[in-house]
């Protein structure tokens, strides 16, 4: 009897979590930059310098598939994970814990 109560609670929370999660769309897996051959990429340090100048605080940065991925704090003060175009250094996608804060058009 009591087991079914906690199972129902489990189902309800799972449902609530899924309902909220459906908006977050597990977006990171399919981020692409179509950056072309690596010879044309600007260096990660160039991107970091540009971001720092714009007011970002950077924790960690590395290439991820054909984008640059940077962890850090935005000029607005959000702690995020962000994706940048390695050639144009354009901002592509900004995520906070799975939630999309910015997506390039």
């Amino acid at each position, binding site marked *: 009897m*009591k*087991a079914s*109560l*906690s*199972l129902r*609670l*489990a*189902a309800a*929370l*799972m449902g609530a*979590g*899924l309902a*909220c*999660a459906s*908006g*977050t769309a*597990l*977006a*990171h*897996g399919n981020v692409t930059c179509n950056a072309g051959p690596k010879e044309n990429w600007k260096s990660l340090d160039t991107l970091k310098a540009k971001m720092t100048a714009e007011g970002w605080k950077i*924790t*960690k940065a*590395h290439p991820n598939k054909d984008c640059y991925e940077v*962890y850090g*704090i935005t000029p607005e*003060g*959000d*702690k995020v994970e962000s994706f940048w175009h390695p050639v144009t250094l354009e901002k592509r996608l900004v995520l*906070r*814990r*799975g*939630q999309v804060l910015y997506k390039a058009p």
Partner: protein
Amino acid sequence: MVNGVGQMRSWRRIANVALAVLLALPLGLMLQGAQQEDWVLADALPPSGEAAALIMFAAMAIGPLARLAGGRSEAVRWLMRRRRNIGVVAFAYAALHLGIYIVDMGAFDLMLAEIGAPGIWTGWLALALMALPAAASNDRAMRFLRGWWKPVQRLVYPVVALTLVHWAILMYGWREPLVHVAPMLALYAAAVIRPLFARKRTDR
């Protein structure tokens, strides 16, 4: 005879050491990872969370395993006696996971800003619910709670649900969490299904 008992003891001693090593292994791997040049504290978040989840699933798997094996096997009884401590170790990893999160975030307002994110509130709620059975995992609490002890322990079911959602959102996919929880769920299913068949046979 005496020899047999002696063998049994050494069997248990080896099993105890093996269990301790196994439970400490994730911590060891995290410390080893920390030696890497470009390591940042946030890199320890996934392994600590994964350890908490896996050890919790393992502790939960022991119950149905014991039911399937029947209570008589020496090894299963040994496992049953350690189940509570395995569960507490899972909670300790979850607490470590939260500690790493707090230090990595570094500021209260940053944590508050993202507490509404589904990936984050599921974690907080999972930890809060998990704290209750963990706190009740000693003889004194057991005597104090009496009939309520079991319902409190069963709060792990909602914790599992929240952990799966938490994991899928933050690590961007369902495959990992589902693959890791599958063995435990399969044991539960088997433990539920088997008596149904057994009853059918005796009915006839």
